[in-house]
């Protein structure tokens, strides 16, 4: 009986000792904030489109750091999910269907385009644009700064006369991708 008591006491003593050590360490090595949010934010495409259900990329990054699903970023697509999975050390998930991009426009990046003759100058799209890429004033025709547009399509819905549409970015020399086998490398004899 006494042996058992000693054994329990010894183990209890050791546990208490280590517990105290861990308690001290948890205070000493307390982590302030979560730098992972910044890293996640850097991976997101920064379209600020809100398709993930959060009002911008940063809030979604914060949510992901707190355990939100990583597969809600439609503009980022598979690539972004892979990168986030890599960073967080979790498995890659297929993109959430409800957050999938509208496939009718093709898979390429798009920009918003205002059909200018239909624009009534209501400024509603300007208020909706998360990156201030729409130029215009009340009662003046608006137009999109293509270089600044992230293609988030948030301006399409608010337009009362439906004069905004999403258009694919035209292929130019600058953004053209090499097509393999278009030219074969020559084997001379």
């Amino acid at each position, binding site marked *: 009986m006494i042996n058992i008591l*000693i*054994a329990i006491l*010894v*183990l209890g003593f*050791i*546990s208490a000792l*280590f517990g105290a*050590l*861990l308690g001290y*360490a*948890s205070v000493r*090595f*307390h*982590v302030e904030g*979560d*730098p*992972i949010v910044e*890293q996640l934010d850097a991976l997101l495409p920064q379209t600020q489109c809100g398709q993930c259900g959060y009002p911008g990329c940063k809030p979604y990054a914060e949510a992901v750091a707190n355990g939100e699903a990583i597969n809600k970023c439609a503009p980022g697509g598979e690539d972004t999910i892979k990168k986030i999975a890599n*960073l*967080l*050390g*979790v498995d890659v998930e297929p993109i959430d269907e409800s957050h999938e991009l509208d496939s009718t426009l093709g898979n390429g990046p798009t920009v918003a385009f205002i059909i200018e003759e239909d624009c009534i100058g209501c400024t509603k799209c300007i208020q909706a644009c998360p990156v201030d890429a729409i130029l215009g004033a009340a009662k003046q025709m608006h137009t999109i700064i293509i270089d600044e547009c992230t293609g988030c399509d948030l301006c399409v819905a608010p337009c009362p006369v439906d004069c905004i549409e999403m258009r694919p970015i035209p292929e130019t020399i600058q953004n053209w991708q090499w097509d393999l086998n278009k030219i074969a490398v020559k084997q001379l004899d």
Partner: protein
Amino acid sequence: MTDYLLLLIGTVLVNNFVLVQFLGLCPFMGVSSRTETAIGMSFATTFVMTLASLLSYLVTTYILAPLNLEYLTTMSFILVIAVVVQFTEMVVHKTSSSLYRLLGIFLPLITTNCAVLGVALLNLRLEHNFFESIVYGFGAAAGFSLVLIMFSAMREKLANADVPTPFKGAAIAMITAGLMSLAFMGFSGLVKL
């Protein structure tokens, strides 16, 4: 001094924990897909193993042995290891948040890394003294780190290589590990203890 050196080389190469004694295979396969992670894991494991073998020596020699409580060794060792791992986790979280994320679940899983408990128990069985325990613990960890990093470097290359489809992924990794193990058998007889 020579004894310690021989002990170190012996544990790192000849009696390599992973490839010869087959201890700690789960992190060996689990965290070897990227070199960066493997290096982080190596440091964490080295820290844990060295500290655990030191502490477990102290616990057995100064607490358990005088009280004739040797039957409590396994239990108290697990306690020691768990504490050290917890401590390491806190340190890693504080110092490198990205490494903390990269290691993910494997960091707390060092607790169940059989190599860690193995090194503590082997220390006891081989009747190592205080310094021998530390050297043995460190040597085991160094051997583990060596093969883990080498293996991860190979796996990184394998990831891009055109492996025949049935062998893709874990299969080719197992084969590679087997070949590495064969290679390490070549060290046997290098050090006579």
